[in-house]
């Protein structure tokens, strides 16, 4: 693949990755959030495949397909199942409203851009220049964790962070060893399963999945 094709494709994948991350803050419908997450997973897979095509590494491409399959197929499927069981369709009252969240996302993007400059300066390739995007998604994911009340939004925030970490790993290195990638993916799968069980339990105990209900458990 020549650079004239590779760079726009890479930028496209990264742009979509960032956009879906920010849109998670915008939408309040939980089903839409899960859809956005699935799209982001697909973007991440595409990103890895593009990197693999550029380096001509079959291993990387397989990893891309696996990552995409897990994050665009399996995880959203699990979350949708949890959503069906609950029937709470909306993120009712986030701690920071949507407009504020989008502003914060802009600030976070700037911070991420400023912080990752030294990393980019190390090897200024097109791939490393996209690292600020991954870092922004990481911070946005953390922000989702902090401000959203529903357990499912929390899971998505957590997974956004993980997507961003995976993206950073692939962008800064020339391919993560398969063993590491397999281990990380398995971890994520287990985490989601555990969180799903927890969500169900919470609903059984409290009749809802608003995390602030857990305050009663203190001391």
């Amino acid at each position, binding site marked *: 693949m020549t650079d004239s094709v590779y760079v726009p494709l890479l930028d496209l994948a990264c742009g979509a990755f960032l956009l879906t991350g920010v849109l998670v803050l915008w939408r309040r419908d939980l089903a839409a959030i899960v859809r956005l997450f699935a799209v982001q997973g697909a973007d991440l897979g595409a990103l890895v495949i593009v990197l693999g095509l550029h380096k001509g590494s079959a291993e990387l491409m397989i990893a891309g397909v696996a990552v995409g399959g897990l994050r665009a197929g399996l995880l959203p499927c699990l979350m949708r199942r949890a959503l069906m069981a609950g029937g709470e369709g909306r993120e009712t009252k986030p*701690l920071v409203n949507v407009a504020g969240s989008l502003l914060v996302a802009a600030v976070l993007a700037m*911070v991420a851009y400023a*912080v990752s*400059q030294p990393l980019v300066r190390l090897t200024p390739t097109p791939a490393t220049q996209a690292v600020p995007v991954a870092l922004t998604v990481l911070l946005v994911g*953390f922000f989702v964790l902090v401000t959203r009340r529903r357990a499912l939004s929390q899971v998505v925030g957590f997974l956004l962070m993980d997507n961003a970490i995976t993206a950073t790993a692939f962008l800064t290195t020339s391919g993560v060893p398969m063993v590491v990638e397999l281990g990380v993916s398995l971890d994520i799968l287990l985490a989601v399963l555990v969180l799903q069980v927890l969500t169900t339990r919470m609903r059984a105990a409290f009749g809802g999945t608003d995390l*602030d209900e*857990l305050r009663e458990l*203190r001391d």
Partner: protein
Amino acid sequence: MNLTGTLFVAALGLCLAAAPAAVLTPRRARPLLAGAATTAAGLAGAAAGVTALSGQGWSARLDGVLPLAGVRLDLDPLGAMFVAVTGAVAVCAAVYGVAYARHGLDGRVAQATPPLFVASMLLVPAAASVSTLLVAWELMALTSLLLVLAEHRRRAAVGEAALWYAVMTHLGFAAILAGLAGFAALAGGETFEQLRAAGLPPGARDAVFLATLAGFASKAGIVPLHVWLARAHPEAPSQVSALMSAAMVNMGVYGILRVGLDLLHGGPAWWWLLVLGAGALSALFGILQAAVASDLKRLLGHSTTENMGLVLIGVGAAGFLASGGDSMLAALALAAALLHVVNHSAFKTLLFLAAGSVLHATGTRDLDALGGLRARMPCTTALFAVGALAASALPPGNGFVSEWLLLQSLIHALPTSGVAGAVTMPLAVGVIALSAGLAIATFVKAFGVGFLARPRTPGAERASESPPAMIGGMALAAASCVILALAPATVLPGLSRLAASLVPGSGHPPGPVPVSGEVTLRLTGYEGTISPLLIAVALAIAVIGLLGAVRLFASRRARRAARLWDCGAGPMSPRMEYTATSFAEPLQRVFDDVLEPESDLDVTPTKESAYLVESVRFRARIPDRIERRLYDPVLAAAGALGRAATGLANGSVHRYLAYGFYALTAVLVALAVIW
């Protein structure tokens, strides 16, 4: 591998094999197996120490055992002395422990840990690199902590004591770690050879010495880091108390000697004046607390602080005199300190084991509840008397010899040691004299109130003699006390050679030994001789003569039995006897300003008349004043901080996540701004 190496490796191997073996064997055979293995290990360790002290050193390097650094061992004379003492204490404690374990201490942990504890105490003085020393030190702390906790189901005080011990020992470990790690970093290597060869800037030397001094002094129970000792030593099972109080505290002295004199080659005079001052303070404070204590094992714990204080007076004087260029006197002071380490280990083992026998037989350690044991436990009483005589530093006890040598070195230092010496040395002499006097009162109290007179409680009345293994363990310790008392020349040549070689500026080969002689000990270069054996013989002749004269005089009259004069108040009850508290009351009155005792008197009059008393309640307590002034404010502040911090945690998951988020973004923003 030479003889020393073979013996030392055998000792370690026996200890390390005894632990899993004790776990696997059934309960009935467990104490015997663990005790036998530890005894053999102790014997081998003591023999290795003696051969290494007499010149046959041994060193080894095991690269595969610890990651990155490997294990380095080196038995030089300084380490060998402490290995020998540890081995000897372990033998007595292990023989004793075989029978003591029947008292509910035959569990897997309680039997498997003592061999490991002994192994760690053999390893600490043999370590020849920073990492080996630290690992052995930590192993020693953890195994002793487990052993302190052995009886935690029986008494609530054990948990508290163990907590104090755990915190203090780990703070001490942190100080040693910081000091030695900084030393190794500056020296560019972590073996003791590299540390010895390194030339450090003066400020760094001071920092290394002060940090390690704090850590090692806390292990030796030196004031003001002594608060754990009088708590943890009494709460441990008695043979463990003996191991801790007679062998483990020595490691603190070893550390100070190793770092201060060996690795840093001595230092400025103020280091050693600091050591001397801390020693003097500990000697006085320890023996004062012991004099007013009424818990037998607590009393012995405070006495450990006192004796370690005396040792540090010697060490401090040695370093101070060496920094002034007087190597011969410095070597004398150091030899006296080392001899006192050996003596203290011998009599403290004996005393703690005897206290354990008393506890075993009567179920109490409270002196006010004992009494009358002389008729019921004659062997234990006789053995405790030997230990008490040694501990009170009177001839013909062994403590007397080392304290006499220490006094000689301080007195002879007077004319030569400048202004600082002219002020310090007389004060140190005064401290030693006062502590010796208080020690006599303390041990007269412990022996007289605990063992003589009539039993004060049913528990003491039902007491019976301990099983033979326990007597055997005590007898071994008593025998070593007697040998050290009558023939200190059995150990002194080795110790004075070690002292002469350890004093900085002594050169190679080291100067003449400071004390020599077989029966009569002579100081080299100064007037002063002492002959413990002749003193003992003269004392024995005098006592026998006196007894003979009394017998001769008394037997001329006919013997008649009459009732004891009791002021007409009817038969005297045991409640009228002196108790430990009442015996110490005059002392407590004299030192009222220092001790600040608390007493509480409740008088309840009868309903009919305010002048007729129905009941009187008296409660007295002597809190540790240093603990109250120094530790209580810190603990209270930590508690208040903890309570204030609970306001941060209101239970909201979002808030906790937000803390992380804010911290992360703050760090990132700071990075973005700085870079």
